[in-house]
């Protein structure tokens, strides 16, 4: 009989049953056996493998101390003597996705074992780690848990057994950019002509070699005479007037707010709060300047460091917000800014 593979599972504080955002600062820890989603993994593994341990780390801890987190987690993981590491799935949770990607690529690199995670295509962890980790593509939310778990387990077992993978599309993972040799039915020339004919007819076709897309924005020249500029403030940290008058969503924001700050020198906690649902709001609600630095910018405006602070600030919630929405907000905001002669912007993000 084939031996049972040993699996370790990485979770954040939420899925690891430690707590919510108030526990996001929790440092790495280990638990015997399966926890939370690990139980589902165990079902999929059946008798082929056993989830022997679970390692957990708070999302904020991991992202604020990535090196310490990776080192400590690696020690815990090593202790279980695993063949496979599974992480997440993180769906569209950015901090969690980054942690999952980082620990998978670190563990594969250091221990040479199989590691697989799962994320939604827009998760920030995808761009950072898709080349170094196997990432099963998941739905944006928890509703995709079962499907993601099944695919993660199947891929992990294939990798652990050294079986040949078919293609990223077939296996359900996000392409790592690795080219694999295979025998095709037709010669390259015939395939190219087929593709060309489809293109001419306007039919769908799949390229065999994707060109990378670089979306970089050219660097703008510096501004020397700060004392003559109008500066605008934007935040994705959700600082809004109390009561959130524009009803900006706590996650997956579909809107932004524009708030008049003429004559406002202080963001008083009884007048402003955060609408962001992705971090512990305690500190921002105690003092909104911890997210939007209006107090010191006003001070510097009065000192003449800049000529003028733009009379409005803009806020949205950057929490699972789609790239398309963020882009649209910025394109609308920038119209105001150009019309009103703003020369520089500071964006603060949590």
């Amino acid at each position: 009989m084939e031996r049972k593979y040993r699996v370790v599972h990485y979770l954040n504080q939420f899925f690891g049953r430690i707590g919510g955002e108030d526990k996001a600062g929790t440092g790495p820890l280990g638990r015997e056996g399966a926890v939370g989603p690990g139980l589902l993994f165990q079902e999929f593994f059946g008798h082929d493998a056993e989830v022997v341990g679970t390692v957990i780390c708070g999302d904020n801890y991991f992202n604020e101390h990535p090196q310490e987190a990776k080192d400590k987690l690696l020690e815990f993981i090593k202790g279980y003597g695993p063949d496979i590491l599974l992480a997440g799935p993180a769906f569209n949770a950015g901090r969690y996705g980054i942690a999952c990607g980082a620990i998978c690529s670190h563990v594969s690199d250091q221990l040479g074992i199989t590691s697989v995670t799962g994320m939604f295509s827009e998760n920030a962890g995808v761009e950072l780690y898709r080349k170094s980790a196997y990432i099963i593509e998941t739905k944006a939310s928890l509703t995709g848990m079962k499907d993601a778990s099944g695919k993660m387990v199947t891929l992990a077992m294939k990798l652990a057994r050294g079986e040949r993978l078919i293609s990223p599309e077939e296996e359900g993972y996000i392409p790592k950019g690795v080219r694999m040799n295979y025998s095709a039915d037709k010669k390259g020339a015939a395939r190219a002509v087929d593709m060309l004919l489809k293109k001419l007819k306007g039919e769908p076709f799949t390229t065999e070699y994707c060109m990378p897309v670089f979306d970089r924005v050219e660097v703008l020249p510096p501004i020397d005479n700060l004392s003559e500029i109008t500066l605008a403030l934007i935040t994705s940290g959700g600082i809004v007037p109390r009561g959130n008058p524009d009803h900006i969503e706590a996650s997956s924001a579909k809107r932004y707010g524009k708030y008049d700050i003429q004559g406002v020198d202080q963001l008083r906690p009884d007048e402003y709060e955060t609408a962001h649902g992705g971090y512990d709001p305690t500190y921002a609600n105690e003092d909104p300047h911890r997210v939007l630095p209006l107090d010191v910018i006003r001070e510097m405006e009065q000192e003449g460091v800049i000529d003028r602070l733009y009379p409005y600030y803009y806020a949205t919630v950057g929490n699972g917000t789609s790239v398309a929405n963020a882009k649209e907000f910025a394109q609308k905001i920038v119209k105001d800014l150009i019309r009103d002669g703003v020369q520089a912007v500071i964006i603060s993000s949590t």
Partner: protein
Amino acid sequence: MAKEIERAGILTVHICTIVPISKTVGANRIIPASAIPYPLGDPSKSREEERALRRKMVEKAFNAIKTKIDGQKVF
């Protein structure tokens, strides 16, 4: 957002905690912040110290506006 605003021709500085995200998304001038729930503060310090820390970060951002860069830069 930082990228789209800069694309439209307005210089943008991004103050953020998770620098790798900002780099991946494509902000050009990046200032690392304190922590996720309080990027421009530190509740373990006194209010005066916190304000001084915040001022320092904003000064860094202003300095970034004045600095010529050749590509993405973390200040």
